[in-house]
C-alpha cells in the first residue's frame, strides 16, 4: 500500500522539472518537450486521485488531456517549423520581434 501522497509528490516533481526546463532551455523544441513533461505530471495526479476516490472521471479527464496535448503538439510543431523557415534559428531568444 503506497500512500497517495507519494504519487502526488512524484507528479509534482515532474511538473517542477517541466517548469525548470521551460525557464532554462534555449531550444524551442526542448521547451515544448518540457511542456509535455508538465502535462504528464498533471496526468499522474489525476489518475492517482481517480484511484483514491474510486471515480473513473479522473481517467476520462486524463484521456481528454492527452488528446488535447496531441493536438497542441501537432500545431505547435507546425508553428515551430514555420518560424524556423523565416528565422533560420531555433533559439527562442532570437524570436523576439514582439518586444515593445
Amino acid at each position, binding site marked *: 500500500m503506497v500512500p497517495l501522497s507519494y504519487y502526488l509528490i512524484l507528479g509534482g516533481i*515532474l511538473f517542477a522539472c517541466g517548469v525548470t526546463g521551460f525557464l532554462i532551455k*534555449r531550444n524551442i523544441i526542448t521547451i515544448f518537450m518540457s511542456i509535455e*513533461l508538465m502535462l504528464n505530471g498533471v496526468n499522474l495526479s489525476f489518475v492517482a486521485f481517480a484511484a*483514491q476516490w474510486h471515480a473513473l*472521471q479522473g*481517467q476520462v479527464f486524463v484521456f481528454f488531456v492527452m488528446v488535447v496535448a*496531441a493536438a497542441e503538439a501537432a500545431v505547435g510543431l507546425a508553428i515551430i517549423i514555420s518560424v524556423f523557415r523565416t528565422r533560420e534559428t531555433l533559439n527562442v531568444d532570437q524570436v523576439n520581434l514582439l518586444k515593445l
Partner: protein
Amino acid sequence: MFHLIIFSVFGLVCVAGAVNLLVQRHPINSALSLVVVMGSLAVEYLLLGAEFVAAVQVIVYAGAIMVLFVFVIMLLNAGEEERTQGSRVALLLGIPGMLVGSILIAWVVLYHSGTGAVAIGALPGPPKTLGWLLFHDFLLPFEVTSILVLIAIMGAVVLAARPEKREG
C-alpha cells in the same frame, strides 16, 4: 511491499529521465529521455489500476507524440544548444517562484491533504465502464475533442506547408 518497490524503482526512473531532459544539450537526447519518462509513467498508471490509460499513454504519447518530436528534430536538423544571453527575469523570478510553488504544494500534500493509501491495481471496473462514461456522460466533450483534433490537423497542415513558389 511489492507495490512500494515497483513504485520507487519506476519513480526513480521517471525522475532521472526528467532531470536528464534538463541536463542534455542536444534536443534529441532530451526527446529520448522524455520517452523514458513516458514509459515509466505508463507503469505507474498500471500500478494505479488504470490499464486503459497506460495503454493510451504508450500508444499516443510515447508512440505518436514523441515520434512527432523526433521527426521534427531531424527535419530541422536541430543542433546542440548555443549559450546565448538568457533572460534575467526568468532566472531571478521564475526559478524561485517555481520552487516556492512546489514547496507549498508538497507541504499541503504531505501534511494536510487527508489522503489515504492506495492499493495496487485498485480501481473500479474494467475499461468497459470507462467506455460507458466516455460515450454517455461525456459524449459532448468527446465529440468536441474529435473536432478539435480535426482542426489541429488542418492547422498543422496549413502552417507547415511549404510556401508556394510563384511561377515566373
